[in-house]
């Protein structure tokens, strides 16, 4: 059974139809990159995967649980879905370590010593062990995003959502963040990544989805989508971004 199944997903903002009948599947351990021009609905699509956007119609089924069902305890579901935002959204009033420990402290049945150990080892994974006790404002953008990844991982999720994780970064910071993401992918994390980094998509993705105007226009392996696009829109888009 697929890890994540999307059926007839619709999302409206008032009268505006942002997502129009999307169908989509992700297998466990798959890395899916979602590409497309801005305003195509890809971020909204991603945010429906943990119901940060209310779902207007259809269903999003993760491990057999339908997120669109209002009787589901969404908080419990979200514990298993990590999310990384374009603008990091670190908690500025907490240190790096506190940022990572906050949610497990609140929600997990572990001693705070265990939580602390996990947090420190995650910081090692993202290469920021020396920053445990500083406040986010003293970090560079790339460092902030790596902390944000560690924070999301602290809840031990089995799906990670990345919403344009490198778009707000200076070019020299992008590499470090992508490295961390590649490491995660290699370890078998199921990942949905909205991105403009075509290189990353080509190299890491198992599956690429091209979205435009609220539809999935084309999907397939990176080779299929990047080298043999079938849809005119995909061709147009790729021509512009791959110059």
């Amino acid at each position: 059974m697929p890890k994540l199944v999307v059926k007839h997903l619709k999302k409206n903002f008032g009268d505006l139809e942002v997502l129009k009948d999307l169908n989509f599947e992700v297998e466990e351990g798959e890395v899916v990159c979602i590409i497309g021009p801005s305003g195509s609905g890809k971020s909204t699509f991603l945010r429906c995967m943990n119901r940060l956007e209310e779902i207007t119609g259809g269903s999003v089924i993760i491990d057999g649980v339908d997120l669109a069902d209002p009787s589901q305890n969404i908080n419990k579901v979200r514990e298993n879905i990590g999310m990384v935002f374009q603008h990091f959204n670190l908690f500025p009033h907490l240190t790096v370590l506190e940022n990572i420990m906050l949610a497990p402290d609140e929600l997990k049945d572990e001693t705070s010593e265990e939580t602390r150990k996990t947090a420190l080892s995650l910081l090692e994974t993202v290469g920021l062990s020396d920053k445990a006790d500083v406040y986010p404002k003293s970090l560079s953008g790339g460092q902030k995003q790596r902390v944000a990844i560690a924070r999301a991982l602290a809840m031990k999720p089995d799906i990670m959502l990345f919403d344009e994780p490198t778009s707000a970064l200076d070019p020299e910071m992008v590499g470090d963040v992508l490295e961390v993401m590649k490491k995660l992918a290699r370890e078998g994390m199921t990942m949905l990544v909205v991105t403009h980094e075509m290189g990353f998509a080509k190299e890491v993705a198992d599956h690429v989805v091209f979205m435009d105007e609220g539809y999935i226009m084309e999907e397939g392996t990176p080779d299929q989508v990047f080298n043999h696009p079938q849809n005119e829109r995909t061709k147009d888009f790729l021509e512009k971004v791959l110059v």
Partner: protein
Amino acid sequence: MRKGKRIHSFILYSILFALFMGLGLPTVVQASESNAKKGTAQNPYIITTDITYPPFEFQNDKKEYVGIDADIINAIAKDQGFEIEFRPLNFSAGLQALEANQVDGMISAMSINPEREESFDFSDPYYEAGTVMAISENNKEIQSYDDLNGKTVAVKVGTTGATFVEKLQEKYSIKVNQFEDSATMYQDVVSGHSDAVFDDYPVMAYAIQQGLKLQLPLEPEKGDVYGFAVNKGQNAELLDMFNTGLANIKEDGTYDNIIDQYLDSDEKGSQNGFFALIQKNWRELLNGLSKTLLLTVISFAIALLFGVVLGFFAASPYAILRGISRLYVTIMRGLPMLVLAFFIYFSIPELLNIKLTAFIAGVATLTLSSAAYISEQVRGGIEAVSGGQLEAARSLGMSYGKSMVRVVIPQAIKIMIPSLINQFVITLKDTSILSIIGIVELTQAGKIIIARTYSSGSMWIIIGLIYILIITFLTWLSTFIERKMINA
């Protein structure tokens, strides 16, 4: 023997009668008391005066009743050898008490007129109080009513002075400024907005004696005469003694001494100096200030609680809570605080048939009003933090409540502190509006001192300085605390 028997039965009946009367014991006791000679120390004449009406009656520093009325009746009592006891009541209550024989006499700057003569017997007039014109101390231009042509004159609404000026207007072109109270009216001339003022001679002469910077270029007009009154057909002896005594004290100079003491402007009071004003009134000012602070602290504390709840409503995901909050804020923001204070103090007791003290009404006014503004600041603080921060916390699986408590609120508080300090200062200043429902906070304390000393000019400077000092101090204190909190 027959005669003796009759005497016996007379005594018997008398005893029986006395026993019978004994059932109405209080009546008997009262009767026996009123049998004691009236006007002695055991059974003094009860005299009513107004509570405060300077220079005729007012309490001095030692809480004794003094003034023209009080001093005259005391001097006459001494001259005639009877004892009196003052029972101060406001003027209309005094009239009712006299009519009901609860008091024996009334001396309260009361004009003798035909309507009153139907209910009361009056003494010979002991004072004539006519309207008089006053001008600024330095004014040399106005020496007669003719000089008023083209000038501006201040009057108090509904007084004989106002009526007199209306008559003058038939002859001269005079612009009139209307006032509700004497102190403000006098200040209008002192500060040069009006050129002259018309008021009762004794009240104005006393004000000038107290240091008001006005002068009286003309003699007073003929006016009402004041008399001492007893109930119709009662206490004729007291009335006789008053008339005889009045003649005596006029003859021996006591009367003139009394009048001069209160009205002679050559013996000017020196209390209008800036520091003398503070020195003489610091206790009253301090009481006013502590009332102001008490009102502020109590109101702000409750408003903070209430405002935070409403602010959370406003920032909540539930439309009904947001609606409640928005409705509340809309109503409170649309209501001038003065109207709100009147509504709470006058309308609510009438509508709900309850009693509210002015203090409680004042606290309610400030609380309800500040809570609306605080809730807006809380909402603003939460919204400034919300968005990405709330999403990040929610995406980790934390509930709305946990996310608010652990992530949003700690940041929102830091954002809100400066505007909350500001709101505290505004609340403190708004307490001055409550003087309108009679709470003696700092502003009202100032008004009261001015009503007594006629020193608007200096007094408002003093009051203003006190507000500035206390607010500056409190702002400094809260900035200090704020810095400590942020560094912590």
